[in-house]
């Protein structure tokens, strides 16, 4: 089981590495989206500071969203999803491996780059730290929930737009609490509430999303 996890993860990472486009485009897109705002808003630090966390968070969310269709779609089309199901290993474990790969490719790079972007917006070191931590907790939730949507829309006529339509409602609370924590902290408010909610969302989605994804995949293959 543990071995199966490792093999699926390795395969995904190797694939992503071969298809460099994905990773590079995602990171590039993140940097461009978040760099656009200083241009559009002008160099006033007081405003940049306020919108900074929100912009970084929206960027992270969009990166996750943009790469979502890769998680299961190609596997579905080329028949390797069937192999996963028929491997006899617990599908939830394999699913977690695939989602982890998605996070490593879209979430982690964003988390790493985010502080640099934050600096552009004149965020303080405190704010940057909190931004980093909320992203670290929040982006896996994005990957997990997004993958539910991706699995549900497999082989369905709706495509990427339908996926985003299904999952964006779930993304919104993550966004609100993630970006909200940074803003609240900057205003001197306690962020325990925000943070505990983010952690709760993480726990909940780690526990439940793999189940939902696994059943969605089985349904898609019928």
């Amino acid at each position, binding site marked *: 089981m543990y*071995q*199966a996890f490792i*093999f*699926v993860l*390795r*395969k995904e990472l*190797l*694939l992503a590495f*071969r*298809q460099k486009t994905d990773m590079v485009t995602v990171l590039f897109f993140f940097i461009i989206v978040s760099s656009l705002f200083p241009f559009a808003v002008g160099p006033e630090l007081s405003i940049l500071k306020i919108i900074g966390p929100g912009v970084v968070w929206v960027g992270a969310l969009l990166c996750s969203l943009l790469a979502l269709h890769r998680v299961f779609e*190609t596997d579905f*089309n*080329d*028949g*390797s999803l*069937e*192999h*996963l*199901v*028929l*491997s*006899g*290993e617990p599908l939830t474990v*394999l699913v977690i491996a695939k989602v982890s790969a998605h996070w490593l490719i879209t979430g982690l790079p964003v988390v790493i780059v985010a502080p640099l972007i934050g600096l552009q917006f004149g965020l303080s070191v405190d704010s940057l730290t909190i931004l980093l931590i909320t992203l670290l907790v929040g982006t896996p939730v994005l990957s997990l929930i997004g993958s539910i949507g991706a699995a549900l829309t497999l082989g369905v006529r709706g495509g990427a737009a339908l996926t985003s339509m299904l999952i964006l409602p779930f993304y919104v609370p993550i966004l609100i609490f993630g970006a909200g924590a940074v803003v609240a902290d900057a205003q001197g408010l306690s962020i325990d509430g925000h943070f505990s909610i983010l952690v709760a969302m993480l726990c909940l989605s780690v526990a439940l999303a793999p189940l939902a994804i696994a059943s969605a995949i089985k349904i898609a*293959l*019928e």
Partner: protein
Amino acid sequence: MLAVQNLGFARGKNILFEDLNFSMNAGDAVRVTGSNGSGKTTLLRIVSGLCRPDNGAVIWHGGLARKSDSGFVKSVNFIGHDDGLKKQLTAIENLKLMLPLLGAYPSDVEIESALDAAGLQAVKHKPVMYMSAGQKRRVALTRLDFMKHRVLWILDEPFTSLDVAAVSCLVLKLRQHIESGGFLIFTTHQDFDVVSEAISLSLD
């Protein structure tokens, strides 16, 4: 020891089969025949457990196949119309990353020699997307060399795109599998003399 009982399945209003029954023992081969759209692929997917039938059940060694303690899933080796290869990866990488999931842990040397035996020396280090149709199929079928431990082979039109040499090589593999006590269910529209004593199951 594999029995299919009263299987029924419909796609919308189109009833593909009803009350389908057959059973097979170790060393048996079943060839599913039927015209295009008669439901061969669907039947194979149901037997392998990918699809749920509307009625009836698949029995494996006396128990329901779909029960998780039946050990059925770990006995199935299904190869469908799509070959499940990743087009950016080479033949070697594909096999190396796919086989462990199916419970086989061959060394690199074993994989390479199996690919060589399949006539893929020249292209085994190329990404699969640069291969010809038949070469892709050969890569997918090389998997069979490592699937001795999964006794129930379910192959959907395995001969597609293969040239004469590859076909006879595959026929040989299938015969060996059956002789060593395996189960084989397959479809093909061509008339190869795969297993002369194969049970024929017509869906028309």
